[in-house]
């Protein structure tokens, strides 16, 4: 049998890291093949090798039985390979058709033939049953639609093998279902699809075959029908994992934080309108919503980074609407920002210095009023690194040298170490591997069990559902409603996330 893709004994090394170690992979034509594994397992590296972005140190690549020597993405495209990256590469101010043809435009003489472009893109779309409007601007269409545009781009260039890198990261549940249908249609037209992901539900829903990588090595390739989620997790991590922590009964009910009719704006654009909610001790309040619905702004507002335009924020009975970031931190509001590289860490600082960030004015870290208490800083850093299992356990290493999961552990260790009453976390597990997610879930639930409160914004609906006691759903800067976890179903929340629904039981 002829395989659509055959990668034999691929080895790729980056300095001291062996990203791909003798990996072999065979993909049958006309199937969806998932490549799964934790962060750093080598999935993306392997696919970048296939797409010609990296040259392997050893190994061969065949497509449809022919050996290929891919020196660049251009070579890969010429061989019928297309790739949709995790972060889209579309120009927002151009139309769909302009974006699709960019780089191989139809021309009339020297001029760009826009109407031919629109026509050809339309043809490609109808041939593959892709619903895309060629004349719309990219900035006007949803992320799900943008992803389809990216797929159309590869089809327009004649791709028979399409690689999708983490295709579901930015989509709503409904859009994910749509993507499933699109993949089905492409498969029926004979296209071969490779998807990189770490979300196992989707793997089971979309794919025919599954290859698991771990630490740069090939673990197993199985057919979907012969496996299930627990065993896939086992292959990925090499041990059993338990997400969602262990919730315990507790006596805490006291109200910690209340937002009353809060509105605010960023750069003159309203981002939150008339939000009212309460957070109690001993609960995790999940915030669901599609990307950009105001979840980040809500967390930043509580942390004091984004000022209120109107409304009041009450914390432990005191009005803190006008308090500064530093004051709130001191009063026990911990914050894990969404963008850990830009907002959470200083990448050129050492692990120790990052563990101190925001706490540098705590009396225990100061001597004689203005000097740093190096001994204490050192001791605490060592203790935190141990308690949160930051690896490598080297307080002098630069934060930039650590993996994403360990960088996030630094932030969690820092914020939790400050003994907060309320922990505000914006997508704390984004892009992390399952082992690190497990640890973060455990920490958050532990905080809840011991009488702290957690506000957790996440784009992963499953995460919100397993962790939360109550779920607040946001849409376009508004609070659509708050559901107790027991009443929340994926369908209900999904509709509210899309702005549909009669906003059941808005309880502040």
């Amino acid at each position, binding site marked *: 049998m002829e395989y659509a893709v055959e990668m034999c004994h691929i080895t790729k090394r980056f*300095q*001291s890291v062996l990203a791909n170690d003798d990996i072999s992979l065979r993909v049958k034509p006309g199937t969806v093949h998932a490549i799964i594994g934790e962060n750093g397992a080598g999935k993306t590296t392997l696919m970048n090798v296939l797409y010609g972005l990296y*040259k392997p140190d050893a190994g061969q690549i065949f497509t449809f039985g022919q050996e290929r020597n891919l020196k660049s993405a251009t070579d890969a495209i010429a061989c019928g390979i297309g790739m949709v990256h995790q972060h889209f590469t579309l120009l927002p101010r151009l139309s769909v058709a302009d974006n699709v043809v960019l780089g191989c435009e139809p021309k009339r003489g020297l001029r760009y033939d826009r109407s031919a472009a629109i026509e050809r893109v339309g043809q490609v779309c109808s041939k593959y049953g892709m619903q895309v409007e060629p004349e719309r601007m990219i900035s006007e269409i949803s992320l799900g639609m943008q992803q389809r545009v990216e797929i159309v781009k590869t089809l327009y260039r004649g791709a028979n093998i399409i690689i999708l890198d983490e295709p579901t990261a930015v989509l709503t549940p409904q859009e994910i279902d749509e993507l499933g249908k699109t993949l089905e249609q492409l498969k029926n037209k004979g296209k071969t699809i490779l998807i990189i992901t770490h979300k196992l539900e989707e793997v089971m829903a979309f794919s025919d075959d599954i290859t698991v990588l771990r630490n740069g090595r090939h673990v197993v390739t199985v057919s979907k029908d012969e496996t299930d989620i627990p065993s896939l997790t086992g292959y990925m991590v090499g041990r059993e994992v338990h997400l969602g922590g262990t919730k315990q009964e507790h006596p805490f009910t006291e109200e910690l934080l209340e937002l009353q009719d809060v509105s605010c704006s960023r750069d003159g654009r309203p981002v939150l309108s008339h939000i009212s909610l309460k957070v109690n001790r001993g609960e995790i309040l999940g915030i669901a919503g599609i990307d950009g619905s105001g979840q980040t702004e809500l967390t930043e507002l509580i*942390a*004091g*980074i984004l000022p209120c335009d109107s409304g009041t924020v009450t914390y432990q009975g005191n009005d803190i609407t006008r308090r*500064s*970031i*530093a*004051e*709130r*931190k001191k009063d026990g509001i911990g*914050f894990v*920002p969404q963008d850990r590289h*830009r*907002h*959470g*860490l*200083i*990448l*050129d*600082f050492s692990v120790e*210095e990052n563990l*101190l*960030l*925001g706490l*540098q*004015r705590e009396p225990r*870290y*100061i001597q004689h009023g*203005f*000097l*740093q208490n*190096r001994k204490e800083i050192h001791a605490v850093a060592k203790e935190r690194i141990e308690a949160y299992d930051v690896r490598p356990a080297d307080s002098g290493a630069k934060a930039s040298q650590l993996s994403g999961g360990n960088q996030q552990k630094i932030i969690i260790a820092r914020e939790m170490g400050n003994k907060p009453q309320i922990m505000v976390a914006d997508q704390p597990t984004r892009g992390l591997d399952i082992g690190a997610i497990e640890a973060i879930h455990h920490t958050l639930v532990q905080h809840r069990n011991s009488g702290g409160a957690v506000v957790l914004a996440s784009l992963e609906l499953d995460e919100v559902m397993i962790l939360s006691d109550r779920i607040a759903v946001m849409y376009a800067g508004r609070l659509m409603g708050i559901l107790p976890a027991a009443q929340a179903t994926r369908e209900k929340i999904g509709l509210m996330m899309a702005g549909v629904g009669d906003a059941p039981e808005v309880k502040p």
Partner: protein
Amino acid sequence: MKEMDTKQIKAFRGIGRKQVMDIIMPFFLVFLAFLLSSIWITFMGKNPLEAFATLFRGAFGSATSFANTIKKSVPIAFCSFAVIVSMKGNAFNIGAEGQLICGAIGATLAGALFRGLPAPLHIFLCIVASALFGMLFGLFPTMMHRFRGVDLLVIFLLMNNVAEYFLQYFVLDLFKSQNALVPSSRAIEKTAELPYLIGPPYRMTIAIILVLICAVVLTWFFNRTVAGYEMRAVGQNRQAARYAGIPIGRYTTMALLLSAMLAGIAGGLEVLGNYHCLYTEISPGFGYDGIPIALLCNANPLLAVIGSVAFGALRNGSLAMQAKVGISSEIVNVIQGSLILVIASNYFIRYLLNWRRRAK
């Protein structure tokens, strides 16, 4: 055993590459700048090798020339400290030249107008005056930047011109000396002159000790104090510092004002240590010398001292080059410009160096 060997080799490669590049790169950039400048020297019909050899001999050839090199490096070092401090606070002080001139004016006024003070006190007052004048001159652009969002580079560069023209007015009219052969300001009192560390013919003053003290104090400030930590945080990642509750606007302002003070002291020491009065040509562009040094030494004050000696050598050696080979000493500005050009293309040069390797 064999496996062990390869592992060690791998580990060595692992630490090697980037760190080695970081150390070699500044030297390589300096080399490139000289290469570029030698093109111009060749165009001028001179032999660049001969020119650079003369330059080197002029800078280090004898004890006196070496002493002159060190003397020239004093104001350069303070200017590089000024740029470093501003960089740590996430800003860029390109106005060191203007602040240096104002610092020199401040020292001249304090040196000439205070009379009958004991020498240590008088010197101290003069240095404080130079710092204060430098800071006041930096205050206006800093405030314009902080409260009105005016672009720092533009306003600092324009302010440099203001300072230069005011200096001419000050030296040639306001505070001119009645009986000097060369146009100069009134001389400072004897009590304000910096004492010699090594007397004539070398005339090395205690200014060089101040340079070393300043480098150590700055290193200590950044690495040991809470404020230094916060300032570095602002410089490395402004947003993360803000999210951590650090008042970023205040730190940028503080860094710029401290930076202006250091540049002012650079000018003050020139007056107090070298000239004992003010000339219109007090600075051949020391304020601009600080920029490539700060960039090359990655904002490390201790390394900047070494960088400053190198630039002092350039400034001093170029005079010999002008006299013996007939190349204008302005060539230093060409070398400096080339240096800034290659620093700006740092990543591009690294990319070119890695190109062959990546293609493999």
